[in-house]
């Protein structure tokens, strides 16, 4: 892979005495989209949080552009270009839609995602820019959350379940935007529970099961049945590669 942007190597991470990730490795090239699928509690969100710097890994390394950023604090990592669109959107509810977008923009890298460019991508926010984010609809909130992340002109965009709780038509509209975002040079790591969406939107897909990467490959050549088996950890031929489950599901 030529223009490697993000490299995650042998990551172990978790909460207090609960380990959620076991030796997870992945690579992301410039302008590439990689999908991360897996059941609830597989560790997808934990992985994104760790890459974004909100969670310090127990072991392993995260490198951005070849530089080790593992111990870099979250705010620095955001400024360096790794930006998370968190699960459940998590906008600043008392700020207007536009103010939400302007928060990271103050410390952004140079790049194509100006306020005007973002309003062109998301015309629905332009109309509601002065409205309080807490009062927007779910779809509008998701648009603001993505715009807020893009406003930082990230190198790596981490999308955590963009489709959560939204109508399929709205989710489709978000997925139709991904190529535009990608074309601006942004690499995307997206978490998606819907296998078909994940496979169509990405160049490569990784499947997590109980904190481990159990299957990975090019999205168009992955066998759908094999992926579903890996997703649920069902013995599809070979026995489940994961160890006995870690008890209650991890908060994904």
């Amino acid at each position: 892979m030529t223009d490697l942007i993000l490299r995650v190597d042998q990551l172990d991470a978790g909460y207090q005495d609960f380990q959620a990730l076991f030796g997870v490795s992945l690579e992301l090239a410039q302008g590439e989209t990689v999908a991360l699928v897996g059941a609830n509690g597989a560790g997808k969100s934990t992985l994104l949080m760790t890459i974004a710097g909100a969670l310090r890994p127990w072991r392993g390394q995260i490198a951005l552009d070849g530089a080790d950023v593992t111990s870099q604090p979250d705010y620095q990592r955001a400024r360096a270009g790794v930006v998370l669109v968190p699960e459940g959107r998590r906008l600043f509810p008392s700020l207007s839609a536009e103010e939400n977008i302007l928060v990271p923009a103050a410390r952004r890298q140079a790049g194509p995602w100006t306020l005007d460019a973002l309003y062109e991508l998301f015309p629905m926010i332009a109309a509601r820019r002065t409205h309080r984010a807490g009062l927007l609809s779910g779809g509008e909130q998701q648009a603001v959350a993505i715009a807020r992340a893009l406003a930082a002109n990230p190198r790596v965009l981490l999308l955590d379940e963009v489709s959560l709780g939204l109508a399929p038509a709205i989710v489709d509209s978000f997925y139709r935007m991904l190529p535009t975002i990608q074309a601006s040079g942004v690499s995307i790591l997206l978490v998606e529970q819907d296998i078909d969406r994940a496979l169509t939107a990405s160049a490569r897909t990784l499947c997590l099961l109980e904190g481990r990467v159990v299957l990975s490959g090019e999205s168009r050549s992955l066998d759908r049945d094999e992926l579903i088996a890996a997703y649920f950890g069902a013995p599809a031929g070979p026995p489940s590669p994961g160890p006995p489950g870690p008890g209650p599901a991890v908060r994904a």
Partner: protein
Amino acid sequence: MTWVNDVVQGIFLGGAYALTAIGLSLMFGVMRLVNLAHGDLAVCGTYLATTVMAMFGVPLWVALLIMVPLAFLLGAVLQLSLFDRALASGPTAPLLVTFGLSVIIENLLQQIYSANTRGVPAGNLDVAAVHLGALVLPWLAMLKLILATAVIGGLSLLLQHTGWGRRVRATSDDLAIARLQGIRVRPLFASVTGIAIAAAALAGTLNAVTTGVYPALGALTLIFAFEAVIIGGLGSLWGTLVGGMLLGVTQVVVSQVSVPYATLASQLLFLAVLAVRPQGLFGSAQAVGG
């Protein structure tokens, strides 16, 4: 006409309470930090101002120009060295830490300045007043009310219309996400506490022109500031001004009937607000703002 004058005096007194309380309201609104040393830090500022006046023989306003930036610095350093760590150690740690700080400050002041009441010389500022018929408008009280309004107005403008204010409000909404969007929280919190302590020190000094200052004054200062914040609604800056005024008016009007009952009346007002509207008059889901 007397009662009109009483209400006016009460509003002025409320301005003094509000100016003291703004910092408490701001720090709680932004960081959810209840600073039990707030009153003692205000008293610290007063002693600092009197010391500057005594050392350099300068008038009060010059001493204030020197003291207020120092108070800002003191607040920022306290935040960076102590409060940040307390906030990171769970919900009870800030209470314990600021309570401990309060005890330390009070005893230190007693060691250095003795327990006696000290006056703050201000020329004739403490007695000068405009008389409009039966209405008495004391300059010092008006100054405090104007300052309280200006500080609250200025802070609201900063919070609503600057990048700093946007970052403060975003952090107040969701600390973890603010950090993930590239906000560096430590200097932001330091600036907030700096402003809070500077305003408290300014208020404490102006109040001491009338009442004098003694090391144990901090506890009393804290109680009234706290009540103004709670009555107005936690985190609402204008609410704090209104809360302070309600306290002040209650106190002055009741003191016309019976002086000993004046303080009791303001405590009863506080309890009544807690019972009827525990979120305060202007309390809302929005943590910090206008």
